[in-house]
């Protein structure tokens, strides 16, 4: 009851504001003549916006948008599961970007009178499309194009470097939960899978699947040559990393274990489809393919432009 | 007839020659020292509301004694204290001169058997298994039963006329049949002392007399000591060597049936007029209640 009343009130307020601000589909270039107040509800979008020099225009972000560090100063409004609607309204955004397939989130925001752009970034192609869309919506088509080009160049550079280095079978996994045995791995067709391809590897998991949870027996059956475990957040703690490493060392029939090629990476940007994908692919490639003569070893911690 | 003992504090039905005690005509009074005695026993379930106070009684070995008294007089509590299930707040209980607390649990269980009033838990044990439980003070730590245990159990079933229920579940039996099985369990314990709480309350006449007859034989032929709480004055008078009348947590009267089954003794305690006659065949008194009004 209270929520409905609030929405009605918010709608009236926003309607009043919006009525004075915009038309239904602002033509290209018209956005430059009015202040751009952006609401970004996805970390990758926030990164893209900063990369397009729109950091100052972001008035609200999700709780998880932590990069770049300046993003921390922007007020947080919750996440796609639970939005702080009052706060959103009080920030008076003119446009909202969110990466989600959930129609109800979009409907909620539009119900507040905020123009909402739903984006997708499950594949590299979709990422490029997303950058383009954001560029168009914010009147930054130029910088968007440049960004796309930079990413593409970086990826191509990685591709060229690993061309002749063979294609080992690589398993990309998140660590298993405490007390459980099963772990989430990147299936074929996911974003990470594409990164692996760029990095010159074949995904050890052969089926097209989003992020399946598999058992250790399956892992042993798949017999990857290289295992990359992405330990982030709480998993990045020292004792947890040691525990993960010890757990893997039990299973010497796995070629990656036998050859000492299990890597536990603590970088947080590896799975974010944003401006750092080139860096992510680079990092992965240096882990998967040992440095050749004259090349330095891979960077230990994350290192962003 | 000896003077009636009205002193509520010291009622010893067996001390030979005690003032106000029993006449020497009581059979077996010369047997000697009390075997089972309560000495100034007091007990309260909730503090401030004592159920028993200053209760003293003594029983020689080889006697059948019945404890009588109106509802709520503390008879069941007394029995539970005599078994050792409750610890009196004052006074103590002695068995063969030794305080109950001095006996190790197992040793006590081998000497004293208890037949409680109601046993209705529907657990699924057969009559035979129930009687075998009576052997548990004698079986080892893991509870294995020897052929001697089985023999004792079957014998107990025979003596209580319950052999044909051996393989039937206890909850399938009638109240009376169940009661006899429980008594058989006590017999299987092969105890010195048997304490029974209203053992014939659910039984028909045939079985009432059967059980009391059995108790009499246990006392006469095997020298056991039996204490039975009863609400049936005439039945108790017909079989018991000694009667103990309990009222409001104290002993109101104790002695032979002739001494206790008297209108002037019973009426004040039961608060109802009674008439006492003598059974010419046995020489024992019996009670005729006067209809109210």
């Amino acid at each position, binding site marked *: 009851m209270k929520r409905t009343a609030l929405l009605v009130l918010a709608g009236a307020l926003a309607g009043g504001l919006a009525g004075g601000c915009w038309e239904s589909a602002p033509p290209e270039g018209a956005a430059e003549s009015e202040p751009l107040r952006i609401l970004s509800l996805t970390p990758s979008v926030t990164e893209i916006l900063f990369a397009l020099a729109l950091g100052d225009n972001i008035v609200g972000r999700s709780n998880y948008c932590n990069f770049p560090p300046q993003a921390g100063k922007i007020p947080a409004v919750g996440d796609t599961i639970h939005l702080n609607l009052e706060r959103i309204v009080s920030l008076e955004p003119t446009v909202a970007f969110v990466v989600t397939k959930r129609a109800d989130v979009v409907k909620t925001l539009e119900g507040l009178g905020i123009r909402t752009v739903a984006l997708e970034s499950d594949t590299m192609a979709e990422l490029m499309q997303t950058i383009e869309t954001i560029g168009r919506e914010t009147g930054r088509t130029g910088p968007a194009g440049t960004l796309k080009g930079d990413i593409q160049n970086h990826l191509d550079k990685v591709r060229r470097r690993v061309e002749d280095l063979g294609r080992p079978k690589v398993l990309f996994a998140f660590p*298993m*939960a*405490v*007390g*459980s*045995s*099963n772990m989430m791995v990147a299936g074929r067709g996911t974003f990470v899978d594409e990164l692996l391809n760029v990095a010159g590897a074949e995904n050890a998991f052969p089926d097209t699947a989003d992020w399946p*949870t598999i*058992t*250790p*027996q*399956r892992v*042993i*059956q798949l017999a990857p040559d290289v295992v990359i475990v992405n330990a982030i*957040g*709480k998993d990045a703690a020292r*004792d*947890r990393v040691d*525990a993960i490493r010890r*757990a893997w060392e*039990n299973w*010497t*029939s*796995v070629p990656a274990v036998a050859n000492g090629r299990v890597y536990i990476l603590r970088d947080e940007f590896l799975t974010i489809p944003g401006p750092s994908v080139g860096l992510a692919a680079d990092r992965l490639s240096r882990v998967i393919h040992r440095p050749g003569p004259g090349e330095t070893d891979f960077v230990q911690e994350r290192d962003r432009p | 007839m000896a003077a009636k003992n009205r002193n509520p504090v010291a009622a010893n039905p067996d001390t030979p020659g005690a003032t106000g005690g029993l006449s020497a005509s009581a059979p077996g009074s010369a047997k000697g020292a009390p075997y089972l005695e309560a000495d100034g026993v007091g007990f309260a379930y909730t503090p401030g509301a004592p159920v028993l106070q200053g209760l003293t009684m003594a029983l020689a070995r080889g006697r059948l004694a019945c404890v009588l008294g109106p509802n709520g007089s503390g008879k069941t509590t007394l029995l*539970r204290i005599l*078994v*050792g299930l409750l610890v009196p707040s004052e006074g103590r209980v002695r068995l063969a001169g030794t305080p109950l607390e001095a006996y190790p*649990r197992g040793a*006590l*269980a*081998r000497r*004293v*058997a*208890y037949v*409680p009033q109601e*046993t*209705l*838990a*529907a*657990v*699924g*044990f*057969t009559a*035979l*298994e129930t009687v075998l*439980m*009576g052997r*548990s*003070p004698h079986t080892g*730590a*893991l*509870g*294995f*039963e*020897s052929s001697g*245990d*089985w023999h004792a159990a079957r014998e107990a079933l025979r003596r209580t006329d319950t052999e044909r229920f051996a*393989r039937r579940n206890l*909850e399938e039996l009638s109240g009376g049949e169940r009661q006899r099985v429980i008594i058989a369990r006590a017999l299987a*314990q092969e105890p010195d002392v048997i304490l029974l709480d209203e053992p014939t309350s659910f039984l028909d006449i045939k079985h009432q007399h059967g059980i009391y007859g059995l108790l009499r034989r246990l006392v006469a032929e095997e020298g056991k000591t039996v204490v039975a709480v009863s609400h049936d004055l005439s039945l108790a008078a017909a079989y018991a060597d000694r009667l103990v009348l309990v009222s409001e947590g104290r002993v109101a009267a104790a002695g032979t049936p002739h001494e206790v089954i008297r209108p002037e003794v019973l009426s004040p305690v039961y608060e109802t007029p009674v008439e006492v006659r003598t059974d010419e065949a046995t020489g024992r008194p019996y009670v005729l209640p006067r209809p109210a009004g």
Partner: protein
Amino acid sequence: MNIRPLTPRRYVLALAGWVLLWLIVSAVAVVLGAENIWAWDSWEKARDVLTLRLYGVLTAGAVGAALALAGLAFQALLRNPLAEPYILGVSGGAGLGVILSSLYLTVMAAPVFGFVGALLTVAVVYAVAQRRGRLEPYTLLLTGVIMNAFYGAAIMLVTALVSPERRGEIAYWMMGTISTFDPRWWLVAVVGGLVLAAAVLFAFLAKGFNLVAVGEDTAGALGVPVDRLRLVTFVVASLVTGASVALAGPIGFVGLICPHLLRMALGPDHRRLVPAVVCFGASLLVVADLVTRLLEGIGGVAPPVGVLTAMAGGPFFIYLLRTRWRRKIEIR
């Protein structure tokens, strides 16, 4: 129903039979699984998978035995055939301890905190439910229910406060996990040892359980130290429950199903039930774990074993309730 004397020879034979059942079931469970390892040419791979399966089988055996034994003990203690190890809130306490430890302290100490949680719960429940040294069945049951409610709320609070990935982990763990990527052989050995010790203890207490089931006064008069028996049983059963939760998370209904099935087959005599329930409980959970592994081969995902026991246990519980209502049970 057996009406034959329980002699040492029969006891040992029966025990040997039950142990044999458990051994056979365990051997089968190690050899079967979703992956057809016999078609592999690599011995190292097969060895690793067999090791994983062996660990799972031993874990399931220890946990199943622990829960079934604790269930039997609680049912004897409370004289309530519907009592389960979890009704006393012990698993809730152990679970909360493990979760809090994994999240806010160190993950490695989680089993220790599981024990701590179980023991703390035991202490609290005992303190609340005891009166002048006696443990009262009704108060015990009620206190347990309240503790469970409290722990449920606490775990929900923790779940709400943590990040979404952690929520999934907690939810998954709460459904019970037998197999693990990081075998903790030492913990399995500890739990197994505890279960064995508890089983031996309860074998000696079995006589007393029979008598207490019939009635407290009866038991006391036959030489059973009823209050001490209650206390010891309560503490040991709770410890064993807490240990199994620390190892495999909360798994329900095993403590209910096993004692009842065996009672229907063997009768209410605890001397026969104790050895049987240990081996049968172990076997049951081993089979349940095997089924989850086989289901993975079919559906691609292995359901947590707790889901399986709940889905079997729920209808069984209802069936029990319906048959029990027809027989009057008095708790004295």
